[in-house]
């Protein structure tokens, strides 16, 4: 399975600001995914990021709020824009395995004050 790292591991931000989360994979992967895990909740898919194309967003998530970059096959970023306390969550990136499973990074714990 791929080894996935995320930066930062945690952050405390003020409302109205933006935070960019980085996801690095130790091997080339076609698809990367971004999930949100709100406090005490399950995981919800935000978007799917393909290298060289626009990210595909799930219902309820928009590019203006969660812009994603995918410059190459080992790296992606997710930006949480114009943050509010409701954006306080754990943000996780994942990559697809060979058998449709997904492997997850350690997550970024975001607190918005």
């Amino acid at each position: 399975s791929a080894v996935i790292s995320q930066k930062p591991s945690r952050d405390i931000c003020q409302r109205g600001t933006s935070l960019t989360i980085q996801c690095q994979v130790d091997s080339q992967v076609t698809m990367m995914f971004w999930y949100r895990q709100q406090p005490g909740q399950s995981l919800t898919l935000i978007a799917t990021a393909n290298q060289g194309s626009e990210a595909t967003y799930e219902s309820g998530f928009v590019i203006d709020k969660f812009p994603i970059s995918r410059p190459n096959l080992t790296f992606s970023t997710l930006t949480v824009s114009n943050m509010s306390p409701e954006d306080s969550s754990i943000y996780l990136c994942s990559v697809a395995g060979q058998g449709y499973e997904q492997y997850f990074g350690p997550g970024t714990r975001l607190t918005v004050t």
Partner: protein
Amino acid sequence: AQSVTQPDIHITVSEGASLELRCNYSYGATPYLFWYVQSPGQGLQLLLKYFSGDTLVQGIKGFEAEFKRSQSSFNLRKPSVHWSDAAEYFCAVGAPRVNTGFQKLVFGTGTRLLVSP
């Protein structure tokens, strides 16, 4: 659309006792099913997966799960729980998307396992 139900929010098990975590899914075709574990402050780790074939699948850390199509269930089991198994467990169902080929995973709400001495 697919969905996953984990009816137990919390479960407490004595160390050394057996464990069964319930998972029910809703999906029209043959599902791809997964169990993940999330320890405090950690990301998700894949315990096991089911795609086809033998309905009893073995995973890491001594876990196993049984797929029962008639009951739309994929329950996770372990014969003897260790204190280090205390964590949040998520069941997930996936379905390939025709256009892109990738699979969207839909997660249940999770079951928090507490292990008592």
